[in-house]
């Protein structure tokens, strides 16, 4: 398992995504209402750059001819054939148990992490009482992507790339 700092949190505001290259893979990191998710930038159908697709919501239906637009910002549509995926877990909407995009764990690391994201109190070291000092801190929360570990709650089985259903476009 490896750990990759994606960016500072303010560089990835809600509703936005960042596509990064890590270890030969491109991965999309998404901020959905303050929670971060990551998907492999590769549609399980035909390997399209999935993470470049439109971010939208889920069109549901409580009954025939009634539309319900919900989960705005949580659904990613593949730019090629329009297959829809749940950003929060990589599952496809049409066949969530068999067709999934690979997803990764993302954390936000607080100050006092292991160096990159850190809080330092800066000011003079000496205690000269004639100089009025104020504690100042720079908080650098960062978004961290964890590779090599599937998000356990959402991906009980391996190898999504092979899970494409027959009859693909």
């Amino acid at each position, binding site marked *: 398992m490896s750990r990759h700092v994606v960016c500072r949190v303010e560089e990835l505001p809600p509703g936005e995504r960042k596509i990064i290259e890590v270890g030969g893979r491109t991965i999309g990191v998404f901020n959905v209402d303050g929670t971060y998710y990551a998907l492999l930038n590769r549609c399980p*159908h035909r390997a399209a750059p999935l993470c470049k697709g439109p971010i939208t919501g889920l*069109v*549901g*239906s409580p*009954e*025939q*001819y*009634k*539309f*319900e637009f919900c989960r705005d910002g949580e659904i990613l549509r*593949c730019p090629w*054939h*329009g*297959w*829809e995926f749940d950003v929060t877990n990589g599952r*496809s*909407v*049409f*066949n969530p148990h068999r067709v999934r995009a690979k997803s990764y764990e993302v954390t936000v690391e607080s100050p006092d992490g292991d160096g990159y994201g850190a809080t330092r109190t800066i000011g003079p070291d000496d205690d000269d009482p004639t100089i009025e000092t104020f504690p100042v801190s720079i908080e650098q929360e960062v978004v961290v992507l964890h590779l090599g570990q599937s998000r356990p709650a959402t991906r009980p089985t391996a190898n999504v790339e092979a899970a494409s*259903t027959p*009859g*693909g*476009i």
Partner: protein
Amino acid sequence: MQQSTGALAPRGMDLGQAVIDTDIHVNVPSENALFPYLNDHWREYLRYSAFRLPTDTAYPKNAPTSALPTTTPENGTAGSSLDLVRSQVLDAWNVEVGILNCSYAAESLHNPDTGAAMSAAVNDWLVAEWLDKEPRLRASIVVPSRVPELAAKEVDRVGGHPGFVQVYLPVVSEAPYGHRRYWPIFEAAARHDLVVSLQFGGAPGNPPTGAGWPSYYIEEYAGMSQVFMSQILNLVVEGGFDHFPNLRMAMIEGGWTWLPSLMWRIDKDWKGLRREVPWNTQTPSDYIRQRMRFSLQPLDASPDPKHMRMLIDQIGSDDVLMFSTDYPHWQFDRPEDAVPAGLSDAQRRKILSENARAFYRL
């Protein structure tokens, strides 16, 4: 006119078990036959108007495909004689239950009340002249499908009769049957636990192809499967199977060997277009496998048993096909050709009777 052609007379055969024939065509021999089932007003209307019988071009009288030799009785049209149906179908094929389909073409009547009155007369004629006389027979309810509310009323009027097992809708329609305007018919069918069937032909005034009016009968006859495909697509995506959880639909005389490609195509496209029809809760082809059944004839396929097995395998279900003779239409020369060769014993039993028995709850 009794034709005499000897060798080509319809023959049945012993298929090793009693069968359920899901498609026996029955025809009203003349407008006079319906007089006893019409009230004074409609009798007078028929007497003094030019109207005789509805016009349906689906089965031209002299086309060889319309009637097997010797199926036309002395008086009347092919499929209008109970005696011939008994000897040429029920006895000849060891039919346990035979379902009568009368393509009366009530939809061709643009006067909605005429359509309703004539449909009711046909149904009463079916009860009196066929169902009450022959316990092996069941029938489809003829309805004025042009006006769904009147069609539903007719289903409610006769739907309680145990001889009626389904509603007859001609596959060529004014608008695809999944449209919500047809809901009254599906609601009525649900009230009486009836199958809704789409059947070859129909004369609503629309051309029988999406490309417009064909020039020749052979186009209309051979091309009818495209109308079935359009209807099936519409029925699935409009969500009728989601909205009516007990809805079962039979596709009669439309063929079925085109099913695999239709299923592949709609499943494929649905993955990207699903949000347009979000009420569909399962893969489109699953609605077809679970909720639709297909009469066996016409069997448009390679004579190679290997290909037939492959087709059924591609459909992905042994449950969708139901034996039919399509009497008196001419779909096969030798009785041996009525059922595809090379099926397993279990597949054969399902096709010959089990699928229809379960579907029609016979």
